[in-house]
Structures are given as structure tokens and as C-alpha cells.
């Protein structure tokens, strides 16, 4: 159970204030969607949660302890691009994390340990719907498959927090819907807290338990430099989504569904779309 506390965090680059006085409590097992206009500091906040950047003022706590100043295996990440390693196959990418963790000198597993790990990795690959692609290189996969791979790779480490930086932004709508189902299922099944940066409000409301909007409260040109963004809206989804429990409207859709028309008529709500005659 992992809670994140962001306490009075400021982030400044020289004179430019990006985030000001941001305070946010993120409950264990929640799925927080960070939304806001471009350049409002969503990604900066995510990088601070990752440990890639440090707050100028304030602090970030993970279960009550301050965050270490660099990224680590307790926080996984999936980016929009460059999330997987081009020189490793699908299987190699998914095995990499545990291999590195277990072999601090060679970074490789051998023999029985390797076979056990490969089996584990194959299970994870199948769980994200990539079974059969184990021997392919990322460049041979479509964008959606690459993001599935990135998820599988990150989840092998059993991260307590999963950070997503517009992970599905470059995918076309059909593929995106599919991967949303996968994401929802993974969040339901695995004990992790998710923070996702997104541009897509629909995506935020489809996946999140809570939508946090960042924006600048002052936007006159002369104020842009010295006033940063902060939380302007904090919306809890209602009825609440709880990890691992079905909610009223989260009807289970068939997995791996490429076709949006399948969602047009959910059971019990048959409605004829009026034809244009």
C-alpha cells in the first residue's frame, strides 16, 4: 500500500517558476490522472515523483519517507517514446529488470535462474497480450505493442508506484481503447498506485480514480515567468472506482478488442441510432 505525499512543492528553473506551492495527497492504490495545458509542469511533477528531478522547495514522501534523489526500482515508468531498449528482443526487454536486480556484476542470469526468469517473463508477455512476439525487436512492433511491452517491462519489477507520461498519446483510437482495458485490468490486479500524465481528458476519466488539473492561476504575459502552475481542479470520480472491485458503470469489455463498434451496444441498453433518411 503506497501513499504519495507532495508537500508544498515548488519547482524553479532559474527565474522561471514552473510549479508553485503544490500540495497533493495521493492515497494508496489510486489512479491519478494529471491533466492541464501544455507547459504547465505536469511532466516536471512526474519527473520529480520519479526522482529524476528535485523540488526546489518542499518535499515528496513515499509512505512517509522522503523520496531518494534518483530513480529506483520502487517507481516504474512508461514514456510515450524510448521506453524500451531497441537492442533487446521483447523477451530480453521484459527479463532485463529482474536480471539486473539479481546479478549486480554481470547483469545477466544463466542456467536455471535464467530459465525460471524467462518463464516468468513469458507469463507477463502473455498477460499484456504480446504472446508470440517474444523474439521480435521493438522496432518490429507497432506503437501499441511497444507500449504493451513497456508496461510488461516496468511491471516485472513489481513497482509500488507506476508513473505514466502520456503513454498512449501517440496511439490511434482503436488501439488506445484496447490498451486502456489492459491498463485498467493491470491496475485492478497489481498492488500499485498509478500517476498518469495525459492530454486526453476522456482517457483521464476512463482510467482515473481522481483527476488533478494543473494550471497557472495567473496568465498575463508579464506574470508568466514568476507565477507557476498549481492544482486548479481536483475531481474524484463518482461513483468511486476502487482497485480490484467492479463499479456500477465499469462493465467488463472483451479484451483485445480492436473494433470500437463492439462498444456501441452494451447489453441491456439497446438503442437504435436514428438513421439519416
Amino acid at each position, binding site marked *: 500500500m503506497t501513499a504519495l505525499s507532495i508537500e508544498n512543492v515548488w519547482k524553479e528553473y532559474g527565474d522561471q517558476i514552473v510549479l508553485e506551492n503544490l500540495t497533493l495527497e495521493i492515497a494508496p492504490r489510486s489512479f491519478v490522472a494529471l491533466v492541464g495545458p501544455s507547459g504547465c509542469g505536469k511532466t516536471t511533477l512526474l519527473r520529480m515523483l520519479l526522482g529524476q528531478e528535485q523540488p526546489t522547495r518542499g518535499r515528496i514522501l513515499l509512505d512517509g519517507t522522503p523520496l531518494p534523489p534518483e530513480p529506483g526500482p520502487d517507481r516504474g515508468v512508461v514514456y510515450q517514446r524510448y521506453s524500451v531498449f531497441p537492442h533487446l528482443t521483447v523477451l530480453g526487454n521484459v527479463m532485463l529488470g529482474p536480471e539486473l536486480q539479481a546479478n549486480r556484476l554481470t547483469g545477466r542470469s544463466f542456467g536455471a535462474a535464467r530459465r525460471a526468469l524467462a518463464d516468468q517473463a513469458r507469463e507477463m508477455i502473455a498477460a499484456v497480450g504480446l504472446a508470440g512476439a517474444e523474439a521480435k*525487436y521493438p522496432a518490429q512492433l507497432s506503437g501499441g505493442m511497444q507500449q504493451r511491452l513497456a508496461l510488461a517491462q516496468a511491471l516485472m519489477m513489481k513497482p509500488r508506484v507506476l508513473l505514466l507520461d502520456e503513454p498512449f498519446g501517440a496511439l490511434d483510437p482503436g488501439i488506445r481503447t484496447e490498451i486502456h482495458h489492459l491498463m485498467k485490468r493491470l491496475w485492478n490486479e497489481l498492488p500499485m498506485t498509478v500517476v498518469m500524465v495525459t492530454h486526453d481528458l476522456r482517457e483521464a476519466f476512463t482510467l482515473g480514480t481522481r483527476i488533478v488539473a494543473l494550471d497557472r492561476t495567473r496568465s498575463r504575459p508579464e506574470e508568466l515567468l514568476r507565477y507557476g502552475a498549481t492544482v486548479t481542479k481536483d475531481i474524484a470520480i463518482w461513483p468511486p472506482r476502487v482497485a480490484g472491485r467492479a463499479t456500477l458503470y465499469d462493465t467488463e469489455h472483451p479484451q483485445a478488442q480492436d473494433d470500437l463498434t463492439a462498444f456501441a451496444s452494451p447489453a441491456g441498453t439497446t438503442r437504435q441510432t436514428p438513421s439519416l433518411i
Partner: protein
Amino acid sequence: MRLINQRLSPGAGAVLKTLPFVALVLAYLLGSALRLAENPNDKLLPALTTLADAIDRMAFTADPRSGAYLFWTDTLASLGRLAAGLGLATLIALLVGMAVGMLPVLRALLAPFIGFVSMVPPLALLPVLFIVMGLGETSKITLIVIGVAPIMVRDLAQKVLDLPREQIVKAETLSASTWLIGLRVVLPQVLPRLLTALRLQLGPAFLFLIAAEAISADSGLGYRIFLVRRYLSMDVIFPYVAWITLLAALADYGLDRLRRKLFPWSELEGAR
């Protein structure tokens, strides 16, 4: 149709590829024939038979004095020096290039220095090398290393820096230490580039080799060329130049094949 959109049939492509080579040979034969018609003793553009005689004398007849087959001893001597020089330079490029590319401390310490050193004209250092290290193999190999390594180091360091930062952070979230990031993320991704850098340095390496051999050696391809130059022996020089070119071209081709074989992913679209 615009020239830029032209598509060639495989046959036309093959013909065009060979055309410049054929033209070169024809031009030589024509020039040679014209000059020899005017003066049968002309040494500048010897006839094919003279060239063949010279090749036979150098490569397939034992030297009456030493009993060695000079062409092959020269080739072995030169290739040995070249391999030693390029091997050392490659090793230095890999170690220093990766360290400078990955570690901010070493980058701050070494990057400007290497940038500066790579501007030293290596040939100007040749006399110094000969005086300090003697006339033996060391000074020749050192010249190749000095001439080639700084550029390869810079190239490799840049390649490391060009890796997306996301990959490094991702590796950290997969629990990698600096060492493991180097070993499993950076090294495999810069090795293809290392082979390419090596290919690009073949030409300069031969240049430095021949310059060093021209000044002081007792065998080697460059040594022989500069020795027989005194007798205007174009019949030896031309085959030697052609042989050096062929060796370099084969090495270039071989290294590229090696890269494709060892790192198939580096050929895929989107993998840089």
C-alpha cells in the same frame, strides 16, 4: 519524371556501378599505349605485361638477396602495424568514449581536452615520436593511435550522449547501477557505432601508416612504395597502391557485414 524520383532496374544499377571502374582501366590502357607508342622506354604508365612482370617478381619470386617474398612480407608488416594501431585506438575509444559520454565528472574533466588534442596534426608529431620512441614499431603504431583515437573517442562519446535520457532513467527504474547501465544498456548500443567509426578511420589509419613507413622502416607497403620511387618503378607502385586500396575496401566491407551480423537490430528502422 524528376531526376530525384528515378528508379533503376537492377541491371542498370549493376552496369552503372561497374562503369567508373571500367572507365578507369580503359583510360589507363589508352594513356599507357599512347605514351609507349611515343617512347617504348616510358616508365610512367607501364603496360599490363610490365605490371604483371613486376607483380610476379614481387609476389611470386623469392628475393635473390633475402629469399623472402617481398610483397607478402610487406603486406604482413603493414597489416600488423595497422591492426595494432587500430585495435588500440578502438579499445581506447570504447573505454574513454563510454566513460566520457556516461559520467559527468569525466566529461567535465576530459571532453574539452580531447577536443583540443584531436586538433593536433599527427604528422607534425612524427619526428617527435621517432626521436622519443625510436625508429621501431612503437612509433609507427603510436602515430596511428594518436591520429585516429581522439576522433573515435569523440564520436563514441557523442553517440552515448545521443541515447535518449529516457532509456537511462528507465534502466534506473529497473534497478541498474551505473556499471550495469554501461554494461547492458550503453555498451550494446554503441558497439555498432564503434564498428562504423572504425570503418571511417581506415583511410586515415592507412595514411598515417604509410607516412611513418615512408620515413623509416625496413619493410611494409609504404616503405616499398617510397623505396622504388627512386627508380621511378611505377610498375611496382601501381600494384601496391591498388593492393592497399583493395585491402582497405575489403576491411570496410567486412566491418559493415560484421556489424549487421552481430547487431541485427541496428539495421531495423526506428532503432537509429
